[in-house]
């Protein structure tokens, strides 16, 4: 019985005896497998990158925004805070303020928050510290506000003046001491819309008092973990809806509810959808090149079979059974595929490495990739080899021997 060891040696000898042709044949597979490997690897890098990006935006955040004023009050704040799975919540108010430093005045968004906000929104301080619940007229400045907005840089413990226009048209101006400045931001692909860099944070109590309002624009809450975030955010949604007298059947009607709610999980999901679509596109390109590659192998195997007709006759005269001739050619085809697969995997990983470097993506090379590369190429070799090998195996030995 023909052993695998001999089949492989025989195949290698045959491949080696036609080096040029073999390398051109493997090229198709190399490109296909390299494309698959690079795609999967890049896909993995992208999703890790997105996850990091979203992760840096906040710690399992749930954002609740009201669509109309006077929707959320302390009552709702308590409700959110007491929902199981919620580990922190900050009310939010926001208004554009006229900010004066030295003699310059700039219009800057100001947010009223409580001390939970720093943790929930994952705000990294460059200097000083974030707002806490005992604070009075203090402000935390975004990095850009402190260092870019004004001609002169603002430092910790400097004073700024903020002027708000109240709902009745009158203005109110107060002096705030700068308590902290956030870290400079890294360049990011993903904008969450809640970046702290261009904002000023002041205690929510102070802001409500100044504006004379008793409602919140929304809540910024944190769930225990990313795994339970969907359930927790659904629960918050339900409780708020019940509290506001919205029928359960309208829970998913964004137009009827006076607020909207979204969480970090959904943002991740959307990102994954985008990268998934990208992946599908790349994968189809890889798939097409694999098909082309396998047609290349099949073509060359057919040529090989024709070329080696007399050899097949010899083998049969020497006592090789049909299935042994079959396996010999299939093994050869699979070895061609595997060689292409090994090189393709290397090129694919190399390509992904380069792209990661160029785009500043993290290097993620799942080990399965190597198995995928080998498996795909062996499979392609197998599929491409079956028809030519079958043709070889079915040859009549006398006719094959006669062939010159």
């Amino acid at each position, binding site marked *: 019985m023909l052993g695998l060891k001999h089949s492989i040696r025989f195949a290698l000898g045959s491949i080696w005896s036609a080096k040029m042709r073999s390398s051109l044949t493997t090229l198709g597979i190399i490109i296909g497998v390299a494309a698959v490997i690079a795609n999967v690897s890049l896909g993995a890098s992208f999703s890790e990158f997105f996850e990091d990006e979203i992760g840096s935006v906040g710690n399992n955040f749930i954002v609740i925004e009201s669509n109309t004023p006077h929707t959320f009050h302390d009552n709702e704040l308590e409700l959110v805070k007491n929902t199981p799975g919620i580990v922190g919540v900050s009310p939010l108010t926001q208004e554009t303020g006229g900010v004066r430093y030295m003699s310059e005045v700039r219009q800057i968004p100001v947010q009223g928050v409580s001390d939970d906000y720093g943790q929930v929104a994952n705000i990294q301080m460059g200097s000083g510290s974030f707002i806490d619940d005992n604070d009075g007229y203090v402000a935390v400045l975004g990095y850009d506000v402190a260092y870019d907005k004004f001609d002169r840089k603002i430092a910790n413990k400097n004073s700024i003046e903020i002027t708000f226009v109240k709902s009745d048209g009158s203005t109110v101006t107060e002096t705030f001491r700068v308590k902290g400045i956030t870290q400079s931001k890294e360049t990011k692909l993903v904008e969450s819309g809640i970046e702290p860099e261009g904002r000023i944070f002041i205690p929510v109590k102070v802001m409500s008092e100044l504006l004379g309002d008793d409602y919140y624009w929304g809540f910024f809450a944190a769930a225990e973990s990313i795994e339970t975030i969907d359930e927790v955010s659904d629960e918050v949604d339900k409780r708020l809806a019940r509290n506001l007298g919205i029928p359960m059947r309208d829970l998913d009607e964004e137009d009827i509810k006076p607020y909207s709610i979204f969480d970090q999980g959904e943002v991740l999901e959307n990102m994954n959808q985008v990268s998934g679509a990208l992946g599908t596109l790349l994968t189809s390109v890889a798939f097409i090149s694999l098909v082309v590659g396998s047609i290349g192998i099949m073509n060359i195997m057919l040529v090989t079979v024709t070329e080696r007709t*007399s050899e097949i006759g010899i083998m049969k*005269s020497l006592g090789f059974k049909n299935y042994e001739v079959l396996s010999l050619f299939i093994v050869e085809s699979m070895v061609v595929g595997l060689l292409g697969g090994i090189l393709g995997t290397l090129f694919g990983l190399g390509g992904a490495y380069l792209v990661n470097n160029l785009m500043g993506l993290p290097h993620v090379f799942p080990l399965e990739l190597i198995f995928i590369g080998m498996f795909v190429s062996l499979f392609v070799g197998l599929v491409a080899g079956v028809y030519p090998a079958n043709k070889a195996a079915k040859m009549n030995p006398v006719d094959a021997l006669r062939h010159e």
Partner: protein
Amino acid sequence: MMVIRLYEGNSQLNDDTVMDVVIDIQNIRKSYLLGDMEVPILHGINLLVKKGEFVAIMGPSGSGKSTLMNMIGCLDRPTDGNVMLMGKDTRSISDNDLAELRGFEIGFVFQNFNLIPRLSAYENVLLPTYSNSKVNLDNEERARDLLETVGLGDRLDHKPTELSGGQRQRVAIARSLINDPSLILADEPTGNLDTKTSTEVMDIFSSLHKGGCTIVMITHDPEMEKYADRVVHIRDGYIENN
């Protein structure tokens, strides 16, 4: 010289002699289809070859010698009639089992050597054992020994293209012997060789014969008759009685 025995119809041999019969061909016919035309090549051939015999088959070109040898070697099946090898009725044996029978019991030597060009002499000799290997034989040692025997002990790693015609044929002979077959079938083994190398090759066959090998050899060359125990003449698909 052993008895030249051509016989018609079924053999009437007793049990002792049946054991000694290597080839028993019973009234075989072979025709090829050329388009719709059936062209008969062999017209009812009977042939009995006993163990240890050296039979030469002679006849003009196109008379059907190779066709007959293909039937004996089970490379092809007759259109009609029966080929008995070592007492086995080959009609009832599957193609795969026939291949195995070939691998173990028959050694082929062809006019054009039929070596695999990219394999070395040693690998060519070893090749049949990849498929059919007798457990009691050390194949690798035997391959080296056989090449030594045919005078190629120093040419183990030469490719066929690096060998002369006579040397190639000696590799082919060594290959035919690797599984210690019951029968050697040679189709014009000296057809491509000059007189001197032909003699060398025939000397090898001769000594194999002396060692007890059963050999059936096709030849054009009347010179070769002298090596054989008996000569069978074929003309137009018939065995000529002389």
